[in-house]
């Protein structure tokens, strides 16, 4: 994996290791195999979302609509199953929906040139609206028993299925970014899209596929969420949007584009999951968890920008 040598990820990795040590000292049940596996289970839902978000942010874009795409996917899967009785068709159509939503974002951003934050702000509301209209605002829960395997099943005894899916997707995305020409183009577009054009990169094409990729990841995430909670609802993905962006940024992806790794994002996601799980075990209220997650994000970024703060502070003193 490229970029691991960069200082930011090391700082975060140290932060993460420190966090694990503190948690295992405070909560004896933290450092058990079963608990750690359940941590990985908790992180894979928004971790998969964050994989797509990372690739988008590397191109200096942003995708606020991934949560709505995940929600819409759950509705499409449930409704298709209800109407056709075929789970395979339902899931395929669900993932196709994610790809189409991503393509819709991508066309507006890449071909017409509308800023990503504006497009996805609009489509976030729009996709959510479609999901609400389709489901009439209700939760759909008549899904077959086999559907729950992805979100609630285990492989090899006690390894959660969704953890395996997350790992496989993370490795694939990492390889896609670091080992393929497409990955190099993604970084090139994020670094300097004008320079990318002059070196023969079809920027519009790269961007289009980036948003389709984010849409597909959102669909997979929605599929897993609805499988875990055994229902489909339009707002299932909404809470994860800001969390996945925060984890991506925490993981060292520059919001201005051009740099970032999946390795960093996985650590960023893990930090959030360990915080949530550890604080739960210690018995800290969920309200404080919200606060501490925000603090963790700001703290890591402050440590990261220490040199800038020092410089500004000395200027200010003078």
């Amino acid at each position, binding site marked *: 994996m490229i970029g691991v040598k960069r200082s930011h990820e090391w700082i975060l990795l140290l932060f993460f290791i420190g966090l694990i040590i503190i948690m295992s000292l405070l909560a004896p049940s933290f450092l058990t195999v079963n608990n750690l596996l359940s941590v990985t289970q908790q992180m894979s839902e928004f971790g998969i979302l964050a994989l797509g978000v990372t690739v988008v942010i590397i191109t200096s874009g942003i995708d606020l609509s991934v949560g709505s795409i995940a929600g819409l996917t759950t509705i499409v899967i449930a409704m298709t199953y209800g109407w056709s009785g075929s789970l395979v068709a339902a899931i395929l159509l669900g993932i196709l929906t994610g790809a189409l939503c991503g393509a819709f974002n991508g066309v507006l951003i890449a071909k017409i040139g509308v800023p990503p934050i504006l497009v996805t702000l609009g489509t976030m509301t729009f996709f959510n609206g479609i999901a609400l209209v389709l489901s009439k605002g209700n939760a759909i829960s008549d899904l077959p028993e086999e559907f729950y395997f992805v979100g609630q099943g285990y492989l090899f005894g006690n390894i959660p299925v969704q953890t395996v899916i997350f790992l496989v997707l993370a490795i694939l995305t990492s390889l896609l970014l670091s080992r393929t020409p497409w990955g190099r183009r993604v970084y090139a577009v994020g670094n300097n899209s004008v320079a990318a054009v002059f070196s023969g990169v079809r920027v519009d094409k790269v961007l289009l596929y980036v948003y389709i990729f984010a849409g597909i990841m959102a669909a997979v995430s929605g599929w897993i969420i609805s499988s875990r909670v055994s229902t489909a609802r339009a707002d299932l993905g909404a809470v994860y949007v800001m969390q996945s962006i925060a984890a991506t*940024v925490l993981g060292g992806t520059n919001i201005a584009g051009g740099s970032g790794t999946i390795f960093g994002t996985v650590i960023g996601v893990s930090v959030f999951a360990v915080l949530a799980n550890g604080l739960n075990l210690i018995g800290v209220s969920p309200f404080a968890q919200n*606060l501490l997650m925000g603090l963790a994000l700001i703290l890591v970024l402050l440590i990261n920008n220490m040199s800038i703060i020092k410089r500004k502070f000395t200027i200010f003193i003078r």
Partner: protein
Amino acid sequence: MSYLLKKREFAMFMMLMVISFCISLITPAFLTPSNLLSIVMNNIILAIMAMGMTLVIVTSGIDVSVGSQLGFAAIFVGLAALIPGSNIVTVLTVGIICGIVLGLLNGILIAGAEIPAIVVSLGTMNIFRGSLLLYTNGKWVTSLPAWYTSLYNTTVMGIPIPIIILLLVIGATYFIAQYTRLGRSIYALGGNPAIASRVGINTGMVTMFVFAYMGALTGIASILYGAQLATIDPNAGTSFELMVISAVVIGGANVLGGSGSLLGSLIGVLILGVLQNGIILMRIEPYWQNVVVGLILITAVTLDVVNNRKKEERKKVIYVAEEVKAGGSM
């Protein structure tokens, strides 16, 4: 530049008129004075906050923590109103100070540590909401005194107090944006931060000001929030930031900075308000609201980009034509 902006506002105003016309054709209840007044009254909080968000977005910043700020300030305003002997001055002071502190915190992190605004406000969104829920333990503030809740319906010379507050906020923001050096610095910073700092603008101070000002307006809005609903939920204002940002963006502010007008943002607020009202009046299933709002947002921003591109191209053609006329020595 201002000509272009005016054109955009005009287009959005026409859109507002067309939407209103269509709704009034379908349901006669729409075009009654009492309904129009209720649209305005129901969207005053959104409008007040949109004024601050316009300045934030003009500097190419964004603040997704305003929903949490609203809840935070509203709870403390409510607690202040419950103290015996408190009056309108107390709640106003508490609300504004709460807002300024929270907004300034964002501003200091953004300007001082050079962390992008979206990331800072993403973090503080969680911090503000988390600490508020921790403090209140999720409990609502209820049984607010009558002098406070009546604030929303009281009229002075026939004008409801919320409308007077809104007009004051619009006036103050317009004055800052249009007639002060600070206002020019705000537009300059959004247009080109490097050049702005080179011509001697203290970009850090300008950034801190717009975020603190956003906070102050959120504080004022929180007073009306509590007075309107009579009970205050610590989850108040959740995802309200998206409504505010949508209204400003529909009104033509460019998130890349440098442009955006208060009038445009007010039209944006009205478009959202009229749509919401119309969907209820027309008895359309409320689920359709997000589809319509989303489509309008997408259409507005797309048309804006397409329009601007056409204008740029025309400018280029004129430029080349003048070069040729001047002797063709390119």
